[in-house]
């Protein structure tokens, strides 16, 4: 047989994909069964083997016709059932349940179910009965064991049910196995659930398993980046840097593999991502309190509180604090900048553009870091605040904590003087960056903000600010087609916005 003839036999074109060839062969098998059509079968096999060998680059086997045909006999088969078949046995058990009297003891169904499981170990339904009966009598330990017996004795579907019923009782090995049977949205949910019950070891593991499962079922929607970020922060917050690091690395790799990394880096979340990455850079043995503090800072954007607590920590445990701060200086530039020079002993010489807010601890009045350090600091602070908005759970709260000095010390700081000139300069700078259509209106709105602030109408200003913020977001989000450096553009916009907000806050500290 030649290659031509082989293709003809199967009815496939020369450029047919090997998978198509294989499936065609398989479909044709149904009409060319060897017992019924031995020659047809032999020809089909020869053709398929030839094409397969040609594709694999191997030699085709030498073949020929097949053995004698055997004529089939038709038979009609009326019903002939055995009273002892598995289905029948299951039925008898089912009947026993329904014949239980209403005053039967509560463990009666359990006993019947156990008998059923013992006599029909391969019947999933019997196991289901047993679990239900045990749960109904609130015998949780036994129900857990029944679940375990079920999936360990040939019924893997019970693992999923077990995870849904008793997520906290899952062992690490069982979480790993879930990766092979559960869809990843379920696994993300499980990670969240485990986090809610504070089992962060397992929560982290579940998240990693979920990420691995995405690759197998890309058709399910992946988790939102904001959720992943919040989860990562929670891991850091609860002292699980290793899991956080692993999860972050895996997620990045997945983003990259999917070609999403670029788009991800342009969003506001990218800054937070970087912050979380920095958190991961700290050694695992850095004081968990410090880690927690930093994670909190990201979550609620309250820098002043963070600085304050850091100082307090430094007073209590100077050595450990110094160790932690040293690491922050060396590995976490954004945090370093955000915390400010006052906390980190070595840093670039100060050259402040404006005085920083007065600090509580005496003798620590050093001006903030200069130039890029400062804008990074502001950028970071802005980003930290932005995160509060981005976090689904903290939308309104984020905005408010940013402005609302919740800690008592903050409230004791004297009101700063609002400087109208600086405010208007900030507006002008921002206006220049706005894209053309609609820029004028937005600009006008921003000026009005300053007017209201100057007039001391703080609540009104607060409300207007929120509106303007949304407008700005909308206007500046789309990247112009000819923009060479979107990240830099974003940075500039953020800086200008921050500067304006900073000025406005001087007028109305409680409302921004």
């Amino acid at each position: 047989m030649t290659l031509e003839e082989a293709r003809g036999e199967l009815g496939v074109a020369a450029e047919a994909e090997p998978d198509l060839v294989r499936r065609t062969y398989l479909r044709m098998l149904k009409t060319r069964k060897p017992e019924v059509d031995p020659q047809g079968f032999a020809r089909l096999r020869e053709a398929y083997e030839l094409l397969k060998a040609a594709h694999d680059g191997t030699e085709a086997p030498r073949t020929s016709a097949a053995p004698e045909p055997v004529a089939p006999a038709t038979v009609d088969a009326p019903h002939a059932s055995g009273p002892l078949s598995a289905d029948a046995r299951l039925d008898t058990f089912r009947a026993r349940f329904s014949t239980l009297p209403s005053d039967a003891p509560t463990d009666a169904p359990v006993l019947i179910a156990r008998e059923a499981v013992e006599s029909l170990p391969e019947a999933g339904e019997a196991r289901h009965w047993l679990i239900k009966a045990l749960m109904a009598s609130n015998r949780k330990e036994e129900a857990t064991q029944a679940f375990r017996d079920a999936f360990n004795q040939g019924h893997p579907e019970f693992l999923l049910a077990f995870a849904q019923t008793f997520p906290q009782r899952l062992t690490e090995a069982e979480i790993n196995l879930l990766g092979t049977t559960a869809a990843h949205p379920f696994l993300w949910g499980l990670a969240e659930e485990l986090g809610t019950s504070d089992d962060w070891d397992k929560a982290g593991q579940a998240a990693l398993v979920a990420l691995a499962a995405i690759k197998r079922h890309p058709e399910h929607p992946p988790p939102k980046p904001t959720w992943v970020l919040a989860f990562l922060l929670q891991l850091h917050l609860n002292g699980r840097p290793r899991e956080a690091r692993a999860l972050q690395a895996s997620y990045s790799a997945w983003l990259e593999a999917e070609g999403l990394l670029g788009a991800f880096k342009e969003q506001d979340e990218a800054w937070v991502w970087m912050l979380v990455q920095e958190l991961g850079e700290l050694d695992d043995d850095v004081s968990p309190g410090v880690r927690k503090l930093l994670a909190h800072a990201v979550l609620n954007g309250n820098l002043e509180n963070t600085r304050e607590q850091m100082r307090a920590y430094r007073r209590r445990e100077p050595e450990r604090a110094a160790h932690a701060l040293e690491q922050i200086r060396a590995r976490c530039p954004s945090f370093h900048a955000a915390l400010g020079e006052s906390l980190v002993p070595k840093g670039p010489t100060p050259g402040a553009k404006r005085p920083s807010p007065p600090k509580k601890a005496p003798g620590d009045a050093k001006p903030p870091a200069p130039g890029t350090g400062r804008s990074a600091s502001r950028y970071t602070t802005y980003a930290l605040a932005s995160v509060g908005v981005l976090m689904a759970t903290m939308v309104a709260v984020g905005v408010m904590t940013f402005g609302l000095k919740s800690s008592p010390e903050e409230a004791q700081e004297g009101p700063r003087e609002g400087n109208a000139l600086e405010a208007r300069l900030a507006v002008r700078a921002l206006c220049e960056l706005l894209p053309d259509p609609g820029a004028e209106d937005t600009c006008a709105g921003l000026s009005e903000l300053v007017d209201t602030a100057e007039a001391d109408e703080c609540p009104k200003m607060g409300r207007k600010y929120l509106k303007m913020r949304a407008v700005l977001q909308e206007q500046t989000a789309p990247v112009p087609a000819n923009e060479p450096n979107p990240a830099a553009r974003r940075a500039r916009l953020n800086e200008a916005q921050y500067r304006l907000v900073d000025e406005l806050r001087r007028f109305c500290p409680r409302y921004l």
Partner: protein
Amino acid sequence: MSPFSKSPILGIDLGTTYSLVSVFSEGRPVLIPNSLGEFLTPSAVALDEQGQVLVGAAARSRGVLHPEQAALAFKRDMGTSRVYRLGDRTYSPQELSALVLAALKRDAEAFLGMAVEEAVITVPAYFGDPQRQATRDAGAIAGLKVERIINEPTAAALAYGLHERNRELKAVVLDLGGGTFDVTVLEIIEGVVEIQSSAGDARLGGEDFDTLLARHVAQRLRQDKGFDLETHAPGWARLREACEAAKRRLSQTESTRIVLPELPVAEGKKLDFEFALTREDAEYAWASALERMRGPIHRALQDASLKATDIEEVLLVGGSTRMPCVTTFATQVFGRLPLRKLPPDEAVSMGAAVQAAMKAGDQAVDDLVVTDVAPFTLGVSTAAQAGHRRITGIFSPILERGTVIPASRVERYWTAGDFQREIRLEVYQGEHAQCSDNVKLGEYAFSGLPPAPAGEQSIDVRFSYDLNGILEVEVTVVTTGRKEAFVIEQRPGKLSPGQIEEARRSMAALKLHPQDALPNTTALARADALHVQLTGRAREELAAAIASFRLALQTQRPEVITPAREHLTGLTAHLRER
């Protein structure tokens, strides 16, 4: 129970320890119970006190107390020339298997209410040509026309595929039966169950787990009391039986005890022996057997060009997969929990019934297609020459393992000597490069070659491997076109048609234990076997039940005998579980 209109084809699982028979009816396989109302018939043959032949549960129980009067696990000797002596005659493994098959045939006929003549019988995938032929012979001796021999894991895959043919997945079947371990990798795609590869260990099964456990216990006995039970057959038989029961119990509980009162430990010496066993201890003793499972699994995966992680479902078949350590082992290897969708003892027989239905052209399985592969390579012995140096015994493969069957392959060979008139064709099965490391299937002397200088005369050797896995060889002299086809002769244990006919007649003349007495005999035999293992109150209770049953038998009145027997069997079963 309404009869079929035409005699159906039986699906028979002829196992090492147990056999089952089923038929396909109304779209599904249906198991046929034996005269005791059980699906599993032990593959055992023994002689009773009168020298009559017993088959099944009665034979097995008899073998516990009188091991020299019983033959067990003879499936392992199929295709060899080993014989068993029972009483004053000897039996070949085929004859013993035939006795079991005949019993199953009887049970089927009683159940269906009609004569049956055809059957599909399963064999381990790793069974070679001699063993498959022997199985066919056994069927013939029993009066059954063996329509097809199929591989056990393929049968399990069929039983499973019957319901799953609309899915697409890659699966592995792990079949750990009484005597053999088979691994089969398959893919269900486009509604076809495509077997990709198969590997196994023909001497690894539940029996080996029993033996390992018994050895473990015997070693303790040796250390504590100085008796070596492994050399004393009656004691060893009892110990193995007790270990088999303990193995089963340990699948349900974490610890158990082996109690053997009056255990014969040496000539004329008996001992009351008790031993506590935890699941952990047992799994330690079984570790070597579990490790042996790894090799075939990796071989099968490799042949299928798949990794353990590519497998989407792991199916457990065979009674021995009930042991928790087997499930744990499988989970470790494949990284996922294995599945047990079908009753592990029954799956293979059900699959055989599906194949029987396919053979009969049943509509319900019209669109079900299964393709199987050759489990090992077949080839011939050749010689190579360089100048004056000559080496012989080189294995030249003609039909590679993994080839989809039925298949036919041809290779051409040249004469090695000048004016060589005769060629001796030696057929081998195996994977080694040296024939001496492979299994010789047989040889054939082919004469009448036209004289010519060495290397100028050639023959085409064609191997045809049919759906039963049986090999046919055809030799063609290229220059003359003369063909000769043959099926391998001189196989160890192979029977000629004449011999088969003689075996049939001789079996028909055997004095079998009366069929209708079988339930009574079995009940007594089981009770006796258990009685030896019990002590105290339980033993007294059982003794009383046995005595009253014997009394009842003497009345010869069924209305007295039946309730007494039921009481005895119930009590035996109950006490056995403790």
